[in-house]
């Protein structure tokens, strides 16, 4: 029974329910008349209240009770799901999240509730019964004791079918005191008229001992309304104990004023139709991934041994294990994939709040919520996306008047979309705002000394300036953005995730920032190559083709190497030179053509060894400054191969060539 902590489960569940509630409230703001949404919000409140009380979160339960009472008016159609109401409800939802997390601020809670009640048009029933009334005991019924009782009862005809077992009732009575049981069979019909599932017997039980009347009534708690029950004391005692005292539960459940309301059966949200699923802690998945990684390495070693031994049986096993390992790897990876929708949901609230604070009406559209990404990637994406969206709201979308003046609809649109692009996922934040002004950006960059005044630069090279630390063109700092921190966080995080950023903007029309991210971080397919005595892995996703560098194939133009591939000039870098490998290059050099951003670059190597599955091991912190390698991997024979970070490597190579070119020009002059 160990290992499961119901309170922890409750916390997780509460978080999910609160998220559902938040989404539903936000939807409700868009479609205030949607009854299904109201019902869904109500149910989330209700479930949370129920389980909160069960696990001792009384403050949560009490607050939710009042929240629910206020919201009930919306459900009954007495109040409208107006904007102020949704805002108040969102605040209340935040407060519940605080309470669940352990915070408690009753004054604030009362204030929020007051707002909420005001929002459901004043006359909300105040003095709502607190949740804990169930604990109260019925007053006025003194525990009357006598020397014994006679209890006579007959069950309703259908009681047996409906699950009431008279034997259990008799057992329970016997448990109270020594009892004598007599069955009166008078009502039993003749054999042919008997209905086997019906109950015909009247029982008479004599309890010989001091027993409280309530204890006897409790035995019949569930059926006493429908049955004949007579309880008489054996010797005459205080007569008023004969009065029926309501059993505690009955009292509690009838004290609430709310009339019965049928819960809607139809539920629209498909995602609530929870597939059979299991909660597993993220650490265990990480652990599993680690093990699979090690298995992949061991399997590579086995493959190598099998290839050397020339033993066909061993080869067959090795192949089988390779296949199993690959599918195990895929399955393990898929368990770590999380739909990005879970992340998108948070931003709706963000945009809602920002749009209210800045009084810019904004439609927030999300596309591709079902796109899945590695859990770690998703977690790290939250911050960059917050910055991008804030930036879009604050700097991108213009104030309504200005939008009208330039002939746009006064309501701005921000679109957050995700889609697969090969082994990558592209996440784009698009706004239909003012767009980036290259001239202004450039002026600002020069002012801040980020670029020299005379350097010729294409507009597309200027846009990425917004990701420079400290760079901001905002004329004044708002509470949201403009301090110049934030966008560089985006760049840093995306770089850390081995992703890339594209900016596409049109002055006056809007901006799209696209983040491209690898599907997973743990294992990649790589192309193993050799340069000198060292081996390196190039991520296969980046590789376009492999060609041979013919002795005369390379053309040098102004210090840059180009080669002709099917009539296209492709620049290439000699890794031997880049890594300062001593000795003469081998006679037959190979070129691996990789895609870096939108350009193609050839990497010249000594030998192409082949595909391998690569488990990425992070470089030590000592080497964290090394950008040209994104990590290392252990090969089948136990040696280490560095993994090339293609984008950084190409950048590094180009800067090296640039320096060499300038050296040469300096010498020539």
């Amino acid at each position: 029974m160990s290992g499961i902590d119901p309170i922890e489960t409750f916390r997780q569940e509460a978080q999910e329910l609160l998220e559902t509630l938040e989404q539903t409230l936000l939807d409700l703001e868009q479609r205030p008349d949607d009854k299904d949404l109201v019902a869904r919000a109500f149910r989330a409140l209700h479930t949370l209240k129920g389980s909160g009380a069960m696990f001792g979160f009384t403050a949560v339960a009490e607050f939710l009770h009042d929240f629910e009472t206020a919201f009930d008016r919306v459900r009954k159609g007495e109040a409208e799901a107006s904007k102020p109401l949704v805002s108040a409800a969102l605040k209340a939802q935040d407060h519940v999240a605080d309470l669940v997390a352990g915070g408690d601020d009753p004054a604030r809670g009362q204030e929020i509730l007051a707002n909420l009640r005001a929002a459901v048009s004043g006359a909300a029933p105040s003095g709502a019964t607190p949740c804990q009334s169930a604990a109260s005991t019925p007053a006025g019924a003194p525990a009357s004791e006598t020397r014994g009782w006679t209890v006579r009862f007959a069950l309703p005809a259908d009681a047996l079918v409906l699950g009431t077992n008279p034997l259990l009732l008799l057992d329970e009575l016997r448990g109270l005191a020594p009892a004598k049981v007599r069955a009166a069979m008078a009502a039993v019909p003749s054999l042919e008229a008997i209905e086997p599932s019906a109950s015909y017997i009247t029982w008479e039980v004599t309890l010989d001992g001091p027993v409280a009347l309530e204890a006897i009534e409790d035995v019949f708690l569930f059926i006493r309304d429908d049955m004949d029950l007579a309880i008489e004391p054996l010797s005459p005692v205080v007569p008023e104990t004969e009065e029926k005292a309501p059993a505690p539960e009955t009292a509690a459940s009838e004290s609430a004023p709310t009339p019965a309301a049928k819960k809607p059966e139809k539920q629209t949200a498909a995602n609530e139709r929870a597939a059979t699923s299991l909660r597993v802690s993220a650490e265990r998945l990480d652990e599993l991934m680690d093990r699979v990684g090690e298995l992949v390495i061991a399997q590579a070693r086995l493959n190598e041994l099998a290839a050397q031994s020339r033993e066909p049986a061993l080869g067959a096993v090795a192949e089988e294990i390779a296949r199993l390992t690959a599918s195990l790897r895929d399955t393990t990876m898929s368990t770590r994939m999380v739909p990005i929708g879970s992340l998108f949901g948070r931003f709706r609230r963000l945009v809602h709040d920002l749009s209210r604070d800045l009084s810019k009406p904004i439609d927030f559209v999300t596309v591709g919520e079902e796109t899945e990404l590695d859990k770690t990637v998703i977690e790290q994406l939250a911050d960059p996306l917050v910055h991008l969206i804030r930036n879009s709201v604050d700097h991108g979308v213009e104030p309504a008047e200005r939008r009208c003046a330039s002939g746009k609809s006064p309501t701005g649109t921000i679109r957050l979309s995700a889609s697969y692009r090969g082994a990558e996922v592209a996440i784009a934040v698009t706004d239909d705002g003012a767009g980036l002004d290259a001239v202004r950006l450039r002026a600002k960059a020069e002012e801040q000394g980020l670029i020299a005044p005379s350097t010729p630069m294409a507009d597309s090279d200027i846009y990425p300036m917004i990701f420079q630390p400290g760079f901001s063109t905002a004329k004044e700092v708002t509470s949201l953005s403009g301090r110049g921190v934030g966008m560089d966080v985006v760049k840093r995080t995306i770089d850390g995730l081995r992703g890339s950023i594209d900016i596409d903007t049109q002055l006056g029309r809007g901006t799209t920032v696209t983040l491209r991210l690898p599907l997973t971080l743990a294992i990649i397919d790589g192309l193993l190559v050799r340069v000198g005595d060292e081996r390196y892995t190039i991520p296969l996703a980046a590789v376009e083709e492999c060609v041979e560098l013919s002795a005369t194939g390379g053309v040098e133009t102004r210090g840059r190497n180009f080669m002709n591939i099917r009539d296209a000039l492709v620049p290439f870098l000699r890794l031997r030179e880049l890594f300062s490998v001593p000795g003469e290059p081998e006679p037959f050099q190979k070129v691996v053509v990789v895609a870096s951003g939108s350009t193609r670059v050839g990497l010249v190597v000594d030998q192409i060894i082949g595909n391998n599955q690569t488990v990425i091991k992070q470089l030590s912190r000592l080497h964290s400054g090394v950008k040209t390698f994104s990590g290392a991997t252990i090969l089948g024979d136990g040696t280490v191969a560095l993994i090339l970070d293609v984008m950084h490597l190409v950048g590094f190579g180009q800067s090296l060539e640039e320096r060499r070119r300038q050296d040469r020009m300096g010498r020539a002059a």
Partner: protein
Amino acid sequence: MSKTILVVDDSASVRQMVSLTLAQAGYRTIEACDGADALSKAGANRLDAVITDLNMPNMDGLTFIKRYRASPASAGVPIVFLSTESDGGIKAEAKAAGATGWMVKPFRPEQLLSVVRKVAGE
């Protein structure tokens, strides 16, 4: 042989708490997350009792009770429903649908056990 109890609730934490309590008392439990799930599990297992929430997605507790009672296999199987005090008159409705007993949320594990013993025995 230990008795089998079907626990129906959309809240995983409540299910877990109920199951844990019952399991410690020697009952065997089957969990279902809503009425539809419960109905299919009730069809596939021989049950000694059912504990069900009323307010659930897909199929609520009342519908589940009615549908389950419509099958002969349910004869004599006690059904306890869970309700909160604000459910008010729903108790009568649930009893009319075929429920045997009820329990008011929140409840403590001992209360749960006493109700289960009351309707299903040890």
